[in-house]
């Protein structure tokens, strides 16, 4: 990847997430957090996806994991519902390409390809679900303890 590509990826994932935050009426003071969440998730996805022998669903899992972790940390820090960061931050990982390709192959009557792409996007969706569930399932007390232990150095 060239520097220009990296910069444009950072910029687009940030601005795109902020765009969706605007759409969902998120208050202005959280825009920065939303953008950072989406950007972090997308960067994680790109890094994992660039490794050999790793499918895009596994990369989506790691991307979603980072998104949820970051939303949870930000929601504790800024004292607001996690939903604000989570909903807009998850958007870059949504398998839009997979859905489009599935429909495209169905209407052009290439059904084998359609099945391949359809199952791939289902796998990605499921990976995102797993990423969210794992982080969300950590009980609040435990999460707060770990958070304060890391950030503030006290329990």
């Amino acid at each position: 990847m060239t520097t220009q590509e990296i910069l444009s990826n950072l910029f687009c994932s940030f601005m795109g997430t902020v765009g969706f935050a605007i759409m969902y009426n998120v208050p202005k003071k959280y825009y920065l957090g939303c953008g950072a969440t989406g950007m972090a998730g997308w960067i994680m996805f790109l890094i994992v996806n660039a490794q050999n022998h790793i499918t895009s669903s596994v990369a989506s899992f790691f991307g979603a994991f980072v998104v949820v972790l970051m939303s949870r940390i930000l929601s504790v820090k800024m004292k607001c519902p996690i939903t604000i960061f989570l909903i807009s931050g998850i958007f870059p990982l949504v398998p839009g390409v997979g859905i489009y390709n599935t429909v495209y192959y169905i209407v052009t009557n290439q059904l084998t390809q359609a099945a391949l792409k359809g199952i791939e996007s289902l796998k990605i969706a499921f990976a995102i679900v797993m990423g969210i569930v794992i982080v969300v399932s950590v009980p609040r007390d435990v999460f707060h303890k770990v958070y304060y232990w890391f950030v503030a150095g006290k329990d």
Partner: protein
Amino acid sequence: MESEMTEDRKITKKERTEQPDGEVKQVVDFALEAGRILLKNGGEIFRVEETITRICQHFGVEHVDIFTLSHGIFVSAENEKGEVYTRVKHIPLSGSHLGIVAEVNELSRQIAGGKVTILEAQERLVQIDRIPPSRARTQVLGAGMGAACFGYLMGASLAESVVTFFIGCLVYLWVILAKRCRLSKIIINIAGGIMITLCAIFATRLSTASMVFSLDGMIIGAIMPLIPGMAFTNAIRDIADSDFLSGTVRMMDALMVFVYIAVGVGIVLMTYNNMTGGFIL
């Protein structure tokens, strides 16, 4: 009994706080209203239940049972004399305003911290409910920006992203207008998909030798504002909290919207493909 009830409602707010019976009703009504606003604007089930419990317990209503679905809240409270007060509230699946969710959450935090009385809290809640959504213009531009940026991330060229910006704006404008006319989700999303694909096909006709527009990047970017990210994420969170019933309803809502979009895009692609014999696609 009936006349007593109406008498009770006529009593001024100040007097009412001194009466134990009135207090239970007042607290439960207030808590239910907070829950309704949360659920309507995209709060999760556990957040609604937690907020109602927190408010009730802080204002001294100890025995309270809550049952929350994705589109309804049932609250039942009991005072020391064993008299039971129950409310049911139907809340249709509707829009999303995360700003309001954040405000109600903040209010409930302050109540738990003991910083507000119930009368102040009631006034604040009425104000919160009236917070308008951002201006339509801002939302449309946000949708365009999101569509263009994600189109670029998914492999559209710079010129295609610019076109995607305009298609995204147009589609979200349609969504806002259609929601004002209370059109059903089926029509909004199928027509949205059709609109996106038509615009994208029209844009490919503009391509010159130096600048070729391809369909996929533009369509993928432009369907992003239609994708039900909120329903999907909330569904997963509800299922993760073992609220399977509400989770299933919301997941079904999200899946159906995915299907509608696919149908809209598919119809146009298929017609175009048949008309041109598949050479251009």
